[in-house]
């Protein structure tokens, strides 16, 4: 990838982050949070997107973000009051902005009419704001910039010479009316390349208080020698601000900090600190130009193009004749770094997912290797207390820790999926004419990235359903004594080593008579079927089931809840529903935290070693002869306490054998399928529980019905991991409907050919 393309990729990644920031900020404002921090963050998000878009000449994106930014600037400046109507407009604008970003990234097209209409609304809003400058206007020529310069005499220095000695820091006495800061910043070329402008930064500083600006052209070369796109100028700004603190000043530079050399000093604080804590600094010593020192150090240490690093200021000690001052600079730089750290923004790096996956694969191999080694050692008959065995225990412990840590790298907060939902809710609410409030909890809950990626579609569909089918119209709600506004709650939490996601609505609940009638009409169940409420509710997961009498734009897209359930199941998850008429429905998804490892029960069936996912197993038992009843030639049930469940011989289901062994000589695993249906799986013996590394069968061989994946055991053999739902004989509901036998489908393959050599 060429460097520009790589930067572009990073830009779009950052755009996604900025869009998320924008949306969460606007939502917080909508919820009544008026903290200026949030308003600023919202503005910055759009401003940053615009800046980057400008650098890449993404005209449409620049145009829209420009208009958006103008409106936000007026909100920020107080000229526009962010009431609910304004926030709704801003939220919809954020949606359009997201469309623009994605169109620019993926080459798609934005709905021009919609974008244009939105831009006009924003312009109308901005036009209604009372006066005040806007960032956009300022961009176009620093137009209405309300700037009261406190001009400091600036005697132009020849370009080749250093500027006259700077006014000593301590001599700039703070105004009695407020705090005073001296800000020196030297942009790097990257700052301009990212479409940032020093003028805007100065203007931002001027928002904090009164500023006096001096340009430092001491680094300017002769015109013939200069690279016009490189950065040579620096600025010294003296800011007198009654209310600002150093954090507020630093914040102005927040998104250019990596692209400029920055030094912020509060002389009053510094001189006070110097008086008490730094007696070794000789106050009578003539001051030297701090920035010149920094530059000297930088020239000595880093090439022009390299990113500045605070640590690189250290060599200034050696380069400078004034070591104590250099030390001060270095200390200040360290303090800056510490402030940044204390400021809470965690340091992150971007890593190609491929590299992480490769690491996960390797750690998986390590786990397998470690298990194989342990088995070999055990086979040698070494005592558990022997030093080799104890060393292996330590190795196992370490391996597990490495595995957990690597898995944690792939874990991401579900926020990335959740954050798409507010927009969805807004759009569906607008299309259906319903009033909806979305409440989200547990966005920080972490789960494997692959799980997150594959959660988006099912969640989208379920939220659509919850609004389209679940919630009533405002009028119906009022008539039912409910608030006009319906509630949809999306929550994530960790429970028992899995992630649980709930989609709750306070709508009308599942209309059971209607659901049942539809199922009968469509021939899914017989009219006589005696079904519990739960079973009726679960009918909506049946293929081809749709309760909508007309196909709506929203949920009627040919995707039913059966598809939702299948996609959740393919993630090793399950979905359940509970509904109360008139009070609403709750859909609960339970998913594994990772798709890379699995806690399994290792069992023997017809001489084969198989792994059953532990999450599906409720209990294991030894069938007694009186408990098993034959139902026809091929089916039997087993009585477990006060209920009967189908008894399925795994050996027959997978085609390993024709005749089942006697149940009393086997072990039954009571399992629960995704729909909540239970069955007992008959196996020959249980070997034990083990965490296994999942290897895709589809990627390495081909899909095998009844088998979810494979793993490699300690002895080097491949063991197949059962797809519990697939091997469960058709659930009672399906049997009542059409009675297709999964067994006929499952009998064909011979998975034993996968045995490792």
């Amino acid at each position, binding site marked *: 990838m060429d460097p520009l393309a790589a930067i572009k990729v990073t830009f779009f990644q950052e755009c996604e982050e900025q869009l998320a920031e924008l949306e969460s900020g606007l939502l917080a404002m909508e919820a009544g949070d008026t903290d200026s921090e949030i308003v600023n963050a919202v503005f910055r998000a759009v401003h940053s997107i615009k800046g980057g878009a400008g650098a890449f000449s993404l005209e449409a994106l620049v145009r829209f973000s420009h208009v958006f930014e103008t409106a936000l600037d007026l909100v920020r400046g107080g000229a526009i009051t962010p009431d609910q109507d304004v926030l709704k407009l801003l939220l919809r604008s954020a949606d359009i902005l997201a469309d623009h970003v994605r169109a620019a990234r993926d080459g798609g097209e934005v709905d021009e009419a919609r974008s244009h209409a939105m831009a006009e609304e924003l312009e109308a809003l901005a036009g209604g704001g009372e006066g005040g400058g806007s960032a956009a206007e300022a*961009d*176009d*020529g*620093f*137009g209405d*910039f309300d*700037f009261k*310069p406190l*001009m*400091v005499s*600036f*005697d*132009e220095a*020849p*370009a080749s010479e250093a500027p006259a000695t700077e006014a000593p820091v301590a001599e700039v006495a703070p105004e009695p009316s407020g705090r005073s800061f001296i800000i020196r910043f030297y*942009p790097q070329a990257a700052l*301009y*390349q990212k*479409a940032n*402008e*020093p*003028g805007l930064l*100065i*203007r931002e500083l001027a928002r904090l208080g009164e500023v*006096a*600006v*001096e*340009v430092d*052209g001491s680094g*300017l*070369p*002769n*015109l*013939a020698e*200069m690279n*016009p*796109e490189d*950065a*040579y*100028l620096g*600025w010294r*700004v003296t800011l007198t601000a009654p209310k600002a603190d150093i954090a507020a000043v630093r914040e102005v530079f927040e998104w250019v900090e990596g692209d400029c050399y920055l030094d912020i000093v509060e002389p009053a604080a510094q001189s006070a600190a110097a008086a008490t804590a730094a007696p070794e600094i000789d106050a009578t010593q003539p001051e030297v130009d701090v920035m010149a020192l920094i530059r000297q150090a930088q020239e000595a240490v880093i090439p022009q193009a390299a990113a500045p690093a605070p640590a690189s200021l250290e060599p200034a000690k050696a380069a400078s004749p004034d070591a104590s001052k250099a030390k001060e600079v270095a200390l200040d730089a360290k303090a800056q770094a510490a402030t940044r750290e204390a400021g809470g923004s965690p340091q992150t790096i971007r890593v190609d997912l491929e590299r992480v996956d490769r690491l996960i694969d390797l750690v998986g191999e390590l786990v397998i290797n470690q298990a194989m080694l342990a088995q070999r050692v055990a086979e040698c008959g070494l005592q558990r207390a022997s030093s080799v065995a104890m060393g292996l225990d330590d190795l196992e412990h370490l391996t597990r820790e490495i595995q957990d840590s690597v898995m944690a790298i792939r874990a991401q907060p579900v926020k990335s999926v959740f954050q798409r939902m507010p927009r969805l809710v807004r759009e569906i609410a607008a299309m259906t004419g319903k009033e909806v409030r979305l409440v989200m909890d547990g966005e920080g809950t972490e789960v494997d990235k692959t799980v997150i990626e594959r959660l988006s579609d099912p969640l989208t569909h379920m939220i659509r359903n919850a609004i389209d089918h679940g919630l009533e119209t405002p009028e119906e709600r009022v008539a039912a004594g409910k608030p006009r506004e319906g509630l949809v709650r999306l929550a994530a939490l960790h429970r028992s080593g899995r992630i649980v996601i709930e989609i709750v609505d306070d709508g009308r609940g599942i209309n059971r008579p209607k659901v049942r009638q539809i199922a009968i009409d469509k021939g899914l169940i017989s009219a006589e079927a005696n079904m519990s409420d739960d079973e009726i509710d679960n009918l909506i997961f049946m293929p081809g089931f749709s309760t909508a009498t007309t196909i709506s734009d929203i949920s009627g897209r040919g995707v039913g809840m059966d598809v939702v359930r299948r996609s959740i199941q393919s993630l090793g998850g399950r979905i359940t529903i509970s509904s109360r008429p008139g009070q609403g429905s709750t859909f609960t998804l339970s998913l594994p935290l990772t798709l890379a490892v699995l806690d399994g029960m290792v069992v023997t069936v017809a001489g084969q070693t198989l792994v059953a996912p532990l999450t599906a197993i409720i209990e294991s038992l030894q069938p007694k002869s009186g408990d098993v009843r034959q139902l026809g030639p091929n089916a039997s049930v087993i009585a477990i306490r006060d209920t009967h469940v189908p008894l399925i011989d795994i050996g027959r289901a997978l085609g390993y054998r024709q005749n089942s062994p006697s149940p009393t000589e086997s072990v039954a695993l009571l399992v629960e399928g995704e729909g909540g249906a239970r069955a007992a799986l008959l196996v020959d013996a249980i070997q034990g529980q083990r965490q296994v590394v999942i290897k895709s069968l589809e990627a390495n061989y081909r899909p095998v019905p009844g088998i979810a994946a494979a793993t490699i055991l300690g002895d080097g053999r491949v063991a197949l991991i059962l797809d519990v739902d697939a091997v469960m004989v058709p659930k009672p509901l399906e049997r009542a409907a059409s009675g297709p036998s999964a067994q006929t489908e499952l009998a064909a393959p011979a998975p034993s050919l996968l045995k490792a050599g």
Partner: protein
Amino acid sequence: MSTDAECAVVRLPSVVDLKAVGALQAEFLAVRGRPLDVDARDVTRLGGLGLQVLMSAKSTWRSDANDFRIVEPSEDFLKALQLFGAPHLEAAALEEPRP
């Protein structure tokens, strides 16, 4: 501080930013050795890179002992100079136009 050579005029574009500075530098250098009037009437936006080209040009012209003036500065141009804290260029801009 003037020469007998004919005065050159370079008219600044409306937006003097990253995209414009390369051409501007070339335009300036093409008339080096002659007094220069920089016409800033069209400027609506002066960026930091534009400023540094102007400052460098001014000091280069000065070291060549040639006149360098900014004529007919637009309002936006003057505001930008003020914002950038560059009064010396502002002074150059406010000089009376050459007769």
